[in-house]
């Protein structure tokens, strides 16, 4: 465990309430975003992230001192998100999240004022929607690996530790997820007019 992490954990264990808040402030976004990237839903991500913290504070005494606490937090969060997706696999998909919709609209309006190119922004909006849908077509485990790697910048080794699998398996899952996404989004990848750029 990193030195400052260990100090923080010790303060929490000794009943320091400011340390608890400090801990939450430090990790809340990481936990929320990984849960959001896997579930694709703001409410689910909020519930999962808060449950993760409650769970962690409840069992902090059992935490292995030599482990990385952020990995432990990710582990709980990813497992909770995968469980939720598996439970919901038979239920119809939720309509686009309110925050997501509002954010996209805001982005659209903001971008249109900035770039003065509403057609391009409408096009981005559609692509974003299709990307979200394509991600939902990938299995929960593949999706978890992909989002941790691509959107949360976790290393192969870290993902392997979080999911308790080998680095080779992480690479295979990432590769498989990418191929599935390519298949789902082949329309954009094969269309020269919508060629992807890093603009």
């Amino acid at each position, binding site marked *: 465990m990193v030195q400052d992490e260990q100090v923080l954990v010790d303060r929490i264990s000794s009943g320091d309430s400011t340390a608890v*808040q400090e801990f*939450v*402030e430090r990790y*809340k*976004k990481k936990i*929320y*975003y990984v849960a*959001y*990237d896997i579930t694709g839903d*703001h409410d689910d991500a909020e519930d999962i992230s*808060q449950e993760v*913290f*409650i769970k962690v*504070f409840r069992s902090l005494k059992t935490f292995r001192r030599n482990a990385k606490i952020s990995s432990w937090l990710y582990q709980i969060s990813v497992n909770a998100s995968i469980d939720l997706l598996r439970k919901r696999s038979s239920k119809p998909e939720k309509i686009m*999240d309110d*925050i*997501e919709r*509002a*954010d*996209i609209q805001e*982005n659209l309006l903001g971008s249109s004022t900035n770039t003065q190119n509403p057609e391009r922004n409408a096009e*981005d909006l559609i*692509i*974003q929607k299709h*990307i*979200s849908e394509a*991600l939902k077509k990938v299995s929960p485990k593949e999706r978890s690996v992909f989002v941790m*790697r*691509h*959107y949360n*910048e976790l*290393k*192969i080794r870290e993902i392997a530790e979080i999911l308790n699998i080998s680095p*080779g398996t*992480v*690479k295979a899952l*990432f*590769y498989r997820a*990418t191929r599935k*996404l*390519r298949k789902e*989004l082949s329309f*954009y*990848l094969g269309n020269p007019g919508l060629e*992807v*750029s*890093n603009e």
Partner: protein
Amino acid sequence: MSDCKKCQDLFCEAFYEELDAEQKNFLEAHISVCEGCESEYDEMTSTLKLMEKRARPEPGQAYWNGYWNKLKRKMEEEKTLAPKSESWWRTFFRAFTVAPKWALQTAAAVVLVVLGIYLGKMIFSPSAPELQQARQLSTVTSQVEQSAEFINRAQNYIERSKLILLALINFDPETEDPYVLNLSHQQQVSRELVSEVSYLKRGIADYDQRHLQDLITDLEVILLQIANLESDRDFEAIELVKKGVDSRGILLQIHVTDFRKFTKIKDKTTPSSTASNTILNM
């Protein structure tokens, strides 16, 4: 591991520029000569670039500012609920939510079967007093059946004995041929009747019928005398039997018994049964 496999194994890190110099050189050298791997790498790169277009919605600063307070409230709620020990019925119903479907179905089937057996016993089985009554009725019925059998045999014994005695008493050796008496037949019947006496006496002892016991004993003596007659020409012996019947008043006793119709047996065997009354009041 082939070069292609080794190369593809590096894609995942190549895109994020995490390869060391040696790995990077190997990848570049391989894809410059392998069209398959080059194509695969390009496709993967373009897909990952496209995926970067995904805009992750940002909940906003207000949301993050209120996050801690929301979590704190939740933790306090948890703390308030935690010390309370869960009630037994909550634990019981929690088991239903956790248990697999097949286990619940099996449990439901078992409950239904047990309930069915219980209700069946409650509705269709007789209660304890009814059972006792049924047992009493069964005992009385058995007694009635036994007494009816005894009565039939006793009546039969007396009737047959009466016929033999009447034949013997009405026989007049001076005017009638001994052939008419058919003594050998009377003797045969007498022996048969004597063989029944022991059974009848036991029955009488059970029912405490003194007069009937006397009658059967007297008849036994007379029937034995008849059975032991040496010849139908032994008129003297026949006359002695006649006198015996007369002196003992056997025919009178038979008439009295017919009149009584075993009323004392009825009193003994019918403490509570109407069925037995019907039979014994014959």
